[in-house]
């Protein structure tokens, strides 16, 4: 509960800052917020308590605390990265209030031990996001993205609620542990309600065929929100998905294994095929992130400790890799407003350091050693092969080759192509620099040092 309370406290603090008569300078408030988020991140590692609250509705454990720390870290990095963008913005405290509200929602969702609590957390984590997507107040694209997001989000929530009510009807309880005891594949109502729930989850993690909203929303939103959506929001839902599938719906594993098999293959293939031809960096990363979810689902199909360890590890790596890529994109976007893949031609001539960071991030997303992405993908596929289904990992391994093509296309633009008017030299402020340093260090070290994975694995036992 401590992590939730801290986030709530920060939200109220921001509210007071906003309401106070004294007008704060944007730079000052950004610095204060970053310090607060940093303290929030650090404190997450101390005094970890386990137990349940609110009549078994809410539970915490070391694993959940660790997952929340990953989300905290991601939020902190995003806040550092959005410095250049928010510097010109008038509504800084509001932005962070909304962001922290969604973070709070994710925490409750992660800790929920009850379908209603879960639903509450999920809603809290998605509704403020629509307002965040609209935060480039003058841009039409931005409002369009927000509208699309709220529509699809409402639709998926509807599906989820329908599933929850069916499940309640079929089992007579909302508590996760009690539901788990009553599930069998024989009961078709239970299977049906599960399908609805899975569809709801599918929307949130933008798995094919529920992915159609992703690209437009990602493209229209400000870069900071896009990265928040694709990393933090998706990551939290995936954390929940793993634990719900493994703990609550393990009685139905025979049926969800087949569903996940199909969804993961579709997600990888379609995400990859669409990513091949994207010209906008954000759109390109949107489709690549769809493909990444496909790989994560393969890890989930493994249904073992290795399965959940590899998923959590991969999401952690994904936070570093994707945020490093988004960090560079947001710097370029804030300085020049250019977001096309072609705009990155000749980028190396003017910005060698940023080019290497972007390249390393893309290599990590592609799963090339020695980056952490290689380890993450390797463990996911290994977990997926644990059930003896080698077709699935063959398809996945070949999909990695396809995905390498489009990541290398960007690398080629950066390093090899000539451009008459390349992006000029960008002088990054201190806080994006710190963010990128953290991300790059994370990409290089988390894989080569086995500590992180071993820690996650030890928490799962």
């Amino acid at each position: 509960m401590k992590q939730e309370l801290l986030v709530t406290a920060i939200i109220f603090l921001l509210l007071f800052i906003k309401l106070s008569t004294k007008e704060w300078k944007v730079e000052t408030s950004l610095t204060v917020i970053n310090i607060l988020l940093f303290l929030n991140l650090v404190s997450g590692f101390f005094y970890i308590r386990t137990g349940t609250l609110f009549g078994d509705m809410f539970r915490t454990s070391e694993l959940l605390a660790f997952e929340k720390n990953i989300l905290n870290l991601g939020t902190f990095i995003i806040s550092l990265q959005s410095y250049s963008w928010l510097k010109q913005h008038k509504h800084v405290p509001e932005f962070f209030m909304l962001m922290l509200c969604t973070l709070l929602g994710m925490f409750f969702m992660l800790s929920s031990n009850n379908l209603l609590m879960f639903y509450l957390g999920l809603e809290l984590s998605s509704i403020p996001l629509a307002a965040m997507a609209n935060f480039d107040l003058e841009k039409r694209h931005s409002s369009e993205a927000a509208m699309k997001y709220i529509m699809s989000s409402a639709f998926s929530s509807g599906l989820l609620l329908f599933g929850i009510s069916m499940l309640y009807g079929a089992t007579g309880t909302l508590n996760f542990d009690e539901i788990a005891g009553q599930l069998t594949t024989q009961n078709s109502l239970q299977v049906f309600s599960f399908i609805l729930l899975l569809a709801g989850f599918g929307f949130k993690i933008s798995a094919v065929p529920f992915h159609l909203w992703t690209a437009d929303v990602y493209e229209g939103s400000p870069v900071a929100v896009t990265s928040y959506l694709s990393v933090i929001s998706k990551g939290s839902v995936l954390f929940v998905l793993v634990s719900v599938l493994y703990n609550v719906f393990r009685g139905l594993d025979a049926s969800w294994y087949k569903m996940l098999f199909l969804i993961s293959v579709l997600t990888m293939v379609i995400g990859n095929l669409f990513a091949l031809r994207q010209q906008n960096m954000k759109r390109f990363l949107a489709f690549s992130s769809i493909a990444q979810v496909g790989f994560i689902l393969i890890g989930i199909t493994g249904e073992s400790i290795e399965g959940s360890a590899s998923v959590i590890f991969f999401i952690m790596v994904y936070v570093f890799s994707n945020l490093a890529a988004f960090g560079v994109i947001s710097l370029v976007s804030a300085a020049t407003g250019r977001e096309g893949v072609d705009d990155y031609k000749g980028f190396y001539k003017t910005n060698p350091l940023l080019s290497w960071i972007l390249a390393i991030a893309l290599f990590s997303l592609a799963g090339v050693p020695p980056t952490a992405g290689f380890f993450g993908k390797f463990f996911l596929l290994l977990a997926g092969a644990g059930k003896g289904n080698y077709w699935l990992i063959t398809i996945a391994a070949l999909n990695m080759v396809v995905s390498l093509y489009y990541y290398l296309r960007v690398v080629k633009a950066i390093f090899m192509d000539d451009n008459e008017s390349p992006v000029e030299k960008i002088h990054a402020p201190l806080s994006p620099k710190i963010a990128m340093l953290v991300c790059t260090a994370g990409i290089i070290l988390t894989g080569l040092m086995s500590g992180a994975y071993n820690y996650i694995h030890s928490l799962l036992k």
Partner: protein
Amino acid sequence: MNLSLLIILPFITLLAILLVRGLKQVRTIALAGSALQLLLVLALLYLYREERAAGNNAAFIFEDGYIWYRSLGINYHVGVDGISIAMILMTALVVIAGVLVSWKMEKMNKEFFFLLIFLSLGAYGFFISLDLFTLFFFLELAVIPKFLLIGIWGSGKKEYSAMKLALMLMGGSALVFVGLAGLYFNTSVNGAHSFDLFDVANQHIPVGVQRVFFPFAFVGFGIFTALFPFHTWVPDGHSSAPTAASMFLAGISMKLGGYGCLRVATFLMPEAAKEYSTIIIVLACIAILYGAFATMMQNDLKYINAYSSVSHCGFILLGIGILTRTSINGAVIQMVSHGLMTALFFAAIGMIYDRTHSRQVAQLGGLMKMMPFISTVFVIAGLCSLGMPGLSGFVAEMTVFMGSWEKSDMFYRIATIVACASIVVTAVYILRAVGSAIMGPVKNSGYLPLKDAGWNEKLAAGLLIVGILVIGIAPLYLTELINPGTDIIMNVINKAVTK
């Protein structure tokens, strides 16, 4: 000796390159690093021989390791036998030669030498790995530097070639991954799976499993070593790459595949290797003949050597496919010999191109008059390629043929004859290139003022020629070195019974 030094030394060189700037400093560091690598490898060779002479009969010597991912059975585990030492020695020679021929690389020199040394790190790591995960890690590690080296510093349709190479090699390693995963889940050490080479080798992998995963592993590694029909990246990649990268590609990284086919696919799945040997031999023979005939049609010197690499690497796969002690020895010798020879060839072509800015056989001519040293190097490489006795190519090919002739079956006889026939074709294209480009009248008077090789080029070529000559004149040293390694593989193969 601590084998991890082979990884640490290039790594320190990389860090040092990051810290300095300017061509002079960077190349000095790179040269110092690669010279130290060579010394280290020579010391390793010496210590290894001492150890063997002292009666150490372990399969792998200088083993070292630490636990990496305990719960997944992934360990960092290294060790060497004669085969790996031979490959490492070849690598060290090619690396230093590659650094020397790139002595005047002005464009983005820091990045260039960084990537070269990075590639060598990957190759060393691969050859000393005794854990399948580490092996796979180092195999993939080398792909991206190749992409960047070809794409940034290459010539011609470099982006296309770089992309093709990266994707095909990645496809190869995707297949390797499936093969390794199959092996992993069929081992059980105290109830857990393991990636360790010994653990997998000690478990008897069921024949049914081998039958499924052998093709994955063999074809996956085979793509790296130009297994027909997956050889198409070779000509494009080699000819677009800058000189040093061509040397690395053909000399070192194609050998990763051959080594993997031998050490992983054949050694760990001997029954399947026997069952599939017919197919491997047929594919290898096609590659040998097809590569040779395709070379005849080429006019670009780099394309000539690239296609001839397809043909020569066919001998490696042929030797592995035949599965006799002599033929596997031949395959290993061919790996070392081809590594040195093709690096020398590409170095000579690079030197010629640097001066004349042409690689077309028809445009060059009479180079012997202006640059006797480079021309001689070219001729030596060519003669080695066509199997002239006294040079390493002869020893390697002869050993493979002798190995295949040991089997009296008609099929093997035909395969041997087909492969032998390619030597005639090799002679045709090599002698044509030598006759037209090196000998004869000077076709272009603009070439007359051109200078011969500088000290760095002479040193680079000299080192490689020494290697070729030592193997060619005294092959006994090399065979003695690799024999214990081959014996271990042969033991497994002889034990393997097929239905």
